[in-house]
């Protein structure tokens, strides 16, 4: 069991990151921290995928390096996903700035209350 864990340490780390990210996304009352949680959650997925591509002793997928190589495809996916994540973060933060301008707070619970009472 311990060996299984050690052999899959990156996956374990990825799962824990997903847990931490989900906790912040759901549980934190500060809107900025929710967005940070979203980022942590996504990087957990990235870790999961990049770790799956790794082959011990292999080179990065630069074809000038000696074979074998790690799989390039997950890297491509993650590159795309990182950019997507940043874009989402930017829009989320833009929304937060606007919400602050309107309500003067970044507390999710307060904002929702005011929002419903309008």
């Amino acid at each position, binding site marked *: 069991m311990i060996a299984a864990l050690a052999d899959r340490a990156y996956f374990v780390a990825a799962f824990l990151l997903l847990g931490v990210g989900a906790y912040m996304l759901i549980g934190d009352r500060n809107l900025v921290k929710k967005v940070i949680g*979203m980022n942590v959650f996504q990087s957990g997925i990235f870790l999961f*995928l990049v770790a*799956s591509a790794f082959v011990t002793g292999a080179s990065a997928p630069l074809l000038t390096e000696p074979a074998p190589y790690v799989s390039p495809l997950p890297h491509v996916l993650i590159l795309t996903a990182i950019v*997507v994540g940043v*874009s*989402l973060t930017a*829009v989320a933060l833009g*929304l937060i700035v606007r919400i602050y301008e309107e*309500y003067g707070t970044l507390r999710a619970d307060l904002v929702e209350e005011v929002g419903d009472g*309008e």
Partner: protein
Amino acid sequence: MSDLVALLVVVPLLGSLVALTAGIVRDESGWAVALVTLAVQAAMAATVAWSVLSGEAISYAVGGFEPPFGIELYVDGLSAAMVVLVPAVALGVLAYARRAGPRSNRFYATYLLLVTGLTGMSVTGDAFNLYVFLEITGLTAYALVASGDRGRSAVAALKYLLVGTFGASLYLLGIGYAYVATGTLNMTDLASELAAVGYASPLVGAAFAFVVVGLFVKVAMFPLHTWQPGAYEGAPDAVSALIASLVSTVSAYALVRVVLTVFTPEYLAAVPLARTLLAATAAVSIVVGSLLAVSQTDIKRMLAYSSVSQFGLIVAALSVTNGTALVGLAVHLVGHAVMKGGLFLAAGLVSTGTGARSVTEYDGLAGRMPVAAGTFGVLVLAMVGVPPAVGFLGKWYIVLGTLEAGAWALATVILLSTLLTLAYFARLLERMYFRDAAEAAPDATAVADGGEGDADGVSTGMYAAAVAAALLAVALAAAVPAYQAALGPTVEVLLP
């Protein structure tokens, strides 16, 4: 011919760039750009759909890179419906938005990007590519919700963003599992590879669970619907209509595509738990969505919960995986998009014309805005499933499909959903037609139609869009037999 499929995605993208840059030259020129773009896209979509429905499915390798190494675009009878639906609804809402606004060029640039994302989701045959378009759709939808000028629009948009991203991320995680298990991302390739891995593998199970739950968030199935009422309520009327009509619909299509093409019916047959996940969520959504809709006082929130319930029908049809139910699913997907979009437009008409946004404010509406009330009434009845409107036909096929599958409990829930739908819509009918408005003249013999211009700010285009939706909700029924026949080859591929 097949290059058209890629152009379907590219055209609205280019239109978006044009709309944004045109703003430098001239203010409020975005609407015209969007109109031209969508008209072109609609024509191309019709061509593609015609060729697919009268012939066979189109597979297109983007950039000439053959799948599974490159990305495949794939249009069959099911996606053909989405491909046509997206620009058609977008055009209808555009007619509404001309007067109702928002009018800025950046709004229409975002609008067209949303169409880009939705079209991409409809045509892609690659699981990760679907994620990318899912995020494009999401990102633009969040921005559009926030385009309302009220503070709560921003709050609703942020909530939508956080929950929506969570859902999309779960989808990505699920695809990650599928990739780790198979090493491929092409949908049809995944199907055979997953079968080779063995359906009992926990990896496949996790992939299914995360993909489905992630898309449940996007479709807004109970209890993952929490973003939806606020988003629909907070958005400007035109945006509510567009999003309510298309985003959940295309997400539901994506769910169907992934479940049937990637996981295949054999997977559901081999893993009863997977089927149960779909069926149970569907049943709960149908019932709880309706109950929540009954308890709403705000019209747009009520319509939002109605969507939760109606998409329960879609997922219920998916869970039984037979040809009849699949036809019902496709019909209801399109029918619901038209009906719900029309309802949001009608609700927008009413709030523009009279300021009424809550259920009680609809009292005596028939006297104040007879055309809007009539439109609303027809759409409501269509949604309840009064024949011969399209809402009935979708439900009919779905019920028949559940009967064929022997899913008695599900069939019962679906049949009773008619009454549940009635529960929240009948009171509106009653208020519109059989109560007098508090301030309006009691003897409103204004049944003689004077719809146009009876309220400031309500344009002919706005009326036309809503009325067209109502007419379409009835007229589409006539197209169902032909569509059903054309769907035959698709069903054979999806459900061998």
